[in-house]
């Protein structure tokens, strides 16, 4: 698999803080994957997101996106076009006075010619299913709709990576589903790489790969199956367990001899049924 982002031995310290927020962190992001980064508040996961497109620059170490490095100011713009971030607060990233103007904002910044801009705006707004709202003003949209507009703004830039920086944490369940479904589709159909920074472990369970962070370092990484096998480690990172895992543990306490952890309700029911049939 092609490596899109390389984080090499990166440390980061905010000028106002005494301690390092990230310590000698290294990781790779591969083309087309859905990578979930989970961790307790203050684990450094949002700082990491900002390092990935050069909004913050490492105190030491290097961040490379494709063949560009965030250390070189001239290459920053190439990186920002390729790496889009959807932030947490839907209101505070909506720049335009209407949906169309907001999607145009990034394209205008990158100097896309107007004719091409109009075409790209059309397609990307349709891609997130907001074509009926193209003239709408932001205060008439729901949180989920605003986040979808933010996604449209990013895909109009033809990026290779979308970062969701807790992009669903302020939304109601319906809005959350709208946003995740939209990004899932982009990931599957267009091969856009997704890095999702999230508290939502049910979402992390569905990722291709999970990174667990604690105190500015990577605690573990692997497939959800591997990572969620180790509940002690998750609890150590200050995380709650996904529902099926919690239930599996409780069942064992009640003497049901399940052999391994099951990530989804379907798997757990099947495993229980197999167990019962053998009973």
């Amino acid at each position, binding site marked *: 698999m092609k490596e899109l982002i390389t984080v090499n031995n990166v440390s980061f310290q905010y000028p106002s803080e005494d301690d390092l927020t990230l310590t000698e962190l290294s990781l790779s992001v591969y083309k087309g994957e859905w990578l979930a980064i989970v961790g307790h508040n203050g684990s450094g996961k949002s700082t990491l997101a900002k390092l990935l497109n050069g909004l913050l620059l490492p105190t030491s170490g290097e961040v490379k996106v494709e063949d560009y490095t965030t250390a070189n100011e001239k290459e920053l713009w190439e990186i*920002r076009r390729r790496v889009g971030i959807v932030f947490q607060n839907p209101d505070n*990233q909506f*720049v335009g006075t209407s949906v169309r103007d907001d999607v145009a904002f990034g394209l205008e910044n990158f100097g896309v010619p107007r004719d091409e801009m109009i075409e790209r705006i059309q397609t990307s707004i349709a891609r997130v299913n907001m074509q009926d709202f193209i003239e709408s003003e932001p205060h008439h949209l729901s949180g989920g709709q605003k986040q979808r507009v933010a996604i449209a703004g990013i895909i109009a830039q033809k990026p290779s990576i979308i970062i969701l920086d807790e992009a669903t944490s302020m939304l109601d369940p319906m809005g959350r589903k709208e946003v995740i479904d939209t990004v899932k589709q982009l990931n599957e159909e267009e091969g856009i790489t997704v890095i999702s920074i999230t508290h939502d472990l049910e979402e992390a369970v569905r990722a291709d790969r999970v990174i667990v962070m604690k105190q500015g370092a990577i605690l573990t990484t692997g497939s959800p199956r591997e990572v969620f096998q180790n509940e002690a480690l998750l609890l150590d990172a200050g995380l709650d367990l996904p529902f099926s895992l919690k239930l599996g543990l409780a069942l064992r306490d009640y003497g049901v001899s399940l052999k391994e952890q099951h990530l989804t309700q379907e798997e757990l029911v099947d495993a229980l049924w197999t167990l019962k049939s053998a009973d």
Partner: protein
Amino acid sequence: MLDNVIIGQYIPGTSVLHKMDPRAKLLGIFVFIFVVFLANNWLTYGILGVFAVAAILLSQVSLRYMYKGLKPIFFIVIFTFVLHILMTKQGEVVYDLGWLKIYNGGVKQGVFISLRLVYLVLVTSLLTLTTTPIDITDGLEYLLAPFKKIKLPVHEFALMMSISLRFIPTLLQETEKIMKAQMARGAEFTAGPIKERVKAFVPLLVPLFISSFKRAEDLALAMEARGYRGGEGRTRLRVLHWRFRDTGALLLLVILAAVLVVLRTHG
């Protein structure tokens, strides 16, 4: 009360005035302000009146609405009128109360100045009633573009305006939310003497400031993430189209000015 102020409100529509280029409308207003000062007799004020009414009819904004919008300035108009009647001592006495003499020159002057005010308010209202704020901003940015040469931050100014416009409804919603939260904690925003009332606004203003700063910070970060780096090398989605009718409208104003110059009382 504030609902009645119509300057600054936009009424969607498809009239000729709505379709005009905002630059033409802005320039038009600019010219009109000078033209109004050319009128100095009944005939010229009459012509201006016909022009203003014609413009309102063209805009398809209802006359009743315009009249409602004028109401808040009636006080100023009447005040100006009375002031002129009392201060101007020209022409014949038309009314004599002994201690107060009203001259026909004063009446005339009062009517003229009042009309001047009404015309100015009507026509400038038409600009905002038929042009979206964002179009006005665009128009201003284009018109002021030459000043970029002398390092005036025209692009930044226009961006600032458009972001303000974008966030006004958001801030209003936020204000309502915080007000409700404080009222639920027993705060009152209406009762008591003025000093108390000012103090009562602290619990509203502090949270509003803090959230606005937070918003500004978030927004700056989001803009940077989306590749914003100032006006240079930027393309634009919004373009303005100057059409024949825009030139026509400005020509009409110039003709109006010429007519007024000829018909005004000289000397």
